[in-house]
């Protein structure tokens, strides 16, 4: 549980989020609003709940579906309060910049989208360049946006060589030493990370947030 002492209504909201029940979350947000609670304080509780969701996920107390639900509930809370959902997704502020895409030959986007949502929920600025992204396009987007981190996703084994080719493309373009590269997806592990020449990999979407927090100060 978060260390901060919460008021009873805040605790009730936090419990509803950690119970992953949107009906209960929205009812509690409504109750807090009609009781005159500052919307920013409500958002703060939702962010505290997200931190707790992240910790529980890392400790394997909850699983992927609940992790996604946590992000969705943060969005619903923000929306119910009249804020735009989450931090800017494509380009404006945020703590740092991440170019994210699924590599050539692979059109899977679920993992990429989960990583995108989690990074945005953690106030990072994500430039999502889509799926089946050829090497040249990755290089072009990196040159254009000058990100801190490049995230490459892929579920299929065909993605291993595409990731490797993309990193080589960044090297040839003289951009590799200007960015950190992270890889992830179904069959990615340390062996793939080494093969590809990435700086990090993670078995879960939450690892992308951990790396970005570490690398972007």
């Amino acid at each position, binding site marked *: 549980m978060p260390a901060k002492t919460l008021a009873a209504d805040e605790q009730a909201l936090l419990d509803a989020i950690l119970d*992953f*029940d*949107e*009906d209960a979350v929205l009812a509690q947000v409504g109750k807090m609003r009609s009781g005159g609670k500052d919307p920013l304080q409500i958002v703060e509780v939702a962010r505290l709940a997200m931190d707790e969701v992240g910790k529980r996920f890392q400790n*394997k107390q*909850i*699983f*992927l*579906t*609940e992790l*996604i*639900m946590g992000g*969705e*509930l943060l969005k619903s809370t923000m929306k119910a309060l009249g804020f735009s959902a989450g931090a800017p997704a494509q380009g404006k502020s945020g703590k740092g910049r991440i170019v994210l895409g699924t590599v*050539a*030959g*692979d*059109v*899977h986007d*679920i993992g990429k*989208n*989960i990583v995108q949502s989690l990074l945005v929920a953690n106030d990072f600025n994500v430039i999502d360049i889509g799926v*089946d992204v050829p090497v040249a396009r990755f290089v072009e987007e990196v040159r254009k946006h000058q990100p801190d981190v490049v995230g490459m996703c892929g579920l*299929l*084994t*065909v993605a*291993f*060589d595409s990731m490797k080719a993309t990193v080589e493309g960044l090297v040839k373009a003289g951009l590799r030493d200007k960015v950190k590269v992270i890889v992830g997806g*179904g*069959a*990615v*592990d340390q*062996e*793939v990370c080494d*093969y590809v020449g990435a700086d990090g990999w993670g*078995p879960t979407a939450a690892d992308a947030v951990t790396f970005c927090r570490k690398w972007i100060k």
Partner: protein
Amino acid sequence: MLEKIVPLLQKPGIIDPLLKLVRSANARLDLNKVRYRGGKARMSQLLAARERRVMDAITLRREPDRVPVIGGGVNFFPAKHAGISVADFMFDPAKMRRAYFKTCMDFPLDTSFPSFLLAIGRVATAAKLSVLKIPGRDIDANSSYQYNEVDRLRDDEWESIARGGVPFVVGTILPRMVELLAEHGAARLAGETRVALELARFLATSMGIMGEMEGQGIYNFLGGFAFPPFDVMSLVFRTLPSLTRDLMRKQTREHVVQLCERMNPWLIRIYLTIAKATGLPGVFFPSERAFSLSPRQFEQYYWPTLKQMIVALVDAGLIPFLEWEADTTHLVPFLKEIPRRISRRCVFNCDASDILEVHKILDGHMAITGNIPLSTMCIGTPHDVEKYCAKLFEALKPGGGYMLCPALGIPDEARPENVHAMIRYAWEHGRY
């Protein structure tokens, strides 16, 4: 017309005589002429030895003569190995057949998924199947087919599907998967004729290959396939993010549970029909979404219908090959709920779960296979493969009930020398 024919095919009074007729015509046409490569007696012995070895491991009735080494859910490794594109494998029966047999001969596995059944490019294209992205048609010719995940059941259609049931699925959802069904008149009729012709060609090719396999000593027990209702929900009706949102809301949560329950008997009938058509006992049975659920969610949404499905398939004489993708260690204890008469007719294919923990939990309840990382098969060395096999053998070989196999079958990009290393390891160290 297709909507009328498909339900008829599920009736034993129709499908049984029809299959008999097709098999008899096939035999007369000599499409499956058996050519015994190394002499009939030798090939028959090889086939029998492989079958006994695999079945001894699956049923845990005794230790096999050695650990079976299997390909598991092989997809397009034969195409890559033979140097043809995945699109060629899916669309060109002659190239596919050569690639399939070359791979079977070069890699003498005890069994593997008969990947020639994936050569559905022409049928899928004639039917305008949009549930899959097909290599050469929708995506790169050398990529594997991939699911086209969209919300075919829209946010505002939950009530309609709850009220409409199967007719709503057939009338509204199916045309969003098989676009030919959305057409009318002459275009529809012409399309259905093309589907029928391509299907006949696919069946003739498949049956021909199945007949030839015997002569080459190739043993396949896997033919049919099945998906748990929750996966059908997620792969066909709702994308994973949408389904996740559905589970956060009371009303849609109840709809998900009800729909899984209502679909289950219908899906079971379809899977039994497919298995019957192949004439093979093994049912390739992936679970692609289970890993994402907590035990509480799994118990609520996934397990009740999956358990019913497993029992129904085994009761019909089939062998479910349960390929649970990603890390599902936290869900494996549920398998202990299945009675042993059922569990010992199943295989647990372990992807990225902690296989040592899985072995401890299952404790002889069910045969285990899988777990050599796909990365090791694709970019590791033969020495890496051997090292991993040694780790698996030390824990899993004693007592039987174990088959050596990569995590999710031989990956498309596996290095041939790594597949050889896996087979060699079983031959050299697998004897009991």
